[in-house]
């Protein structure tokens, strides 16, 4: 059986902040109750990524949290992660599926309905859709969609929708009311003084109102 696609995906980031390492962020997010960690290291060597991913996957296993690797399928293989997340500038989804098989989660990114359709056709298990709001975590993220647009996305999509892009605590309740499956958070957790508490705050709203 495939691992579950969580409702709160915490994406590790060491570009917007440098106080915490990837494993630090993974550990704090897990301790705060995140149900999916997306290891997302954009800079550094393959060896560094591998060592970080190895540490995070162990933490995830112990806590029964889903571990997704951004972009690098080879790292997902090397640490036996639960899946990968592939954007429009990564290896095509159909090819990734051939490499990874049906037991691994593959997430795709979409910013409009055409890309959404393609991601679904290409066999993704979930779609990361956004940006919902303006974001610093991505270069050229595209025009913010707003919360109400996510309702249409959730209606149109036959696979779980994970909203992404500038999501803050105050958006969580409204966002989940649109029918999306989950949210992906970077800055609001990684750049927080206390990522564990920040994660816990997000998770509390999701658990109390949307589970």
């Amino acid at each position, binding site marked *: 059986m495939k691992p579950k696609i969580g409702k709160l995906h915490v994406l590790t980031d060491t570009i917007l902040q440098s106080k915490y390492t990837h494993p630090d962020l993974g550990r704090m997010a897990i301790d705060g109750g995140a149900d999916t960690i997306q290891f997302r290291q954009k800079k550094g060597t*393959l060896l560094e990524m591998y060592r970080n991913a190895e540490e995070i996957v162990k933490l995830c296993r112990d806590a029964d949290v889903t571990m997704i690797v951004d972009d690098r399928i080879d790292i997902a293989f090397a640490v036996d992660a639960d899946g990968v997340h592939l954007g429009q500038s990564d290896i095509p989804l159909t090819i990734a599926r051939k490499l990874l098989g049906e037991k691994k989660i593959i997430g795709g990114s979409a910013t409009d309905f055409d890309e959404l359709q393609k991601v679904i056709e290409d066999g993704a298990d979930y779609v990361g859709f956004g940006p919902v709001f303006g974001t610093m975590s991505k270069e050229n993220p595209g025009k913010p969609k707003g919360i109400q647009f996510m309702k249409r996305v959730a209606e149109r999509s036959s696979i779980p929708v994970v909203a992404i892009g500038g999501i803050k605590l105050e958006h969580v309740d409204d966002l989940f009311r649109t029918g999306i499956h989950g949210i992906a958070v970077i800055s609001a957790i990684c750049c927080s003084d206390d990522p564990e508490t920040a994660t816990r705050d997000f998770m509390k709203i999701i658990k109390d109102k949307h589970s």
Partner: protein
Amino acid sequence: MIDFTLYLVTDRKLTGSRTLEEIVEEACAAGVRAVQLRERDLDARELFDLARRIHTITAKHEAFLFINDRIDVALAVGVEGVHLRETSLPVAEARKITGPDMLLGTSIHSPESAVTAYRQGADFLVYGTIFDTHSKPDLQETAGVQSIVRVTQNIPIPVFAIGGITPDRTRMCIEAGAHGVAVISAIMQSDDVARTVNQFKEQLVIL
């Protein structure tokens, strides 16, 4: 089985008015049997697309194509091998991902790391930087030809010398123990790729 002695390493920023595809086509037509796609600034999709185009060319000439560092792109395109940096995955970890059939080349910079890479199952090694080169301006130290002796003496797998290699400098690398040479700028920037490849081949003929 490593039956090539001339290992072409790409740098599409050195090809001037010509495309990388043209250079690789000419080089393979002239007898290059192994190409490493080393385009570190490309994202995975760009590298995947380029690798597919280059693989069509290398496959036509029955040459091997290696992808630098991105094991997943190598698997995705179905090329013959991966080229690991010292900062990529350890060879043994890479081997678990690629399976037994894919060739694994590894760049090394010391006799010690040569032994480690060999023990972990590398099929061949690339050692340098031997001479001054413009392809790797960040690596200012050159190791010199004599250092090839120390790297090659303890390991049975082929070692290719890299870094500022020209046809004139090829023979001394072979005499120092290298199995062959890895070449970037001498071919990427050549006005006559076929002629340059032939000059290398003359130097690489085993006497």
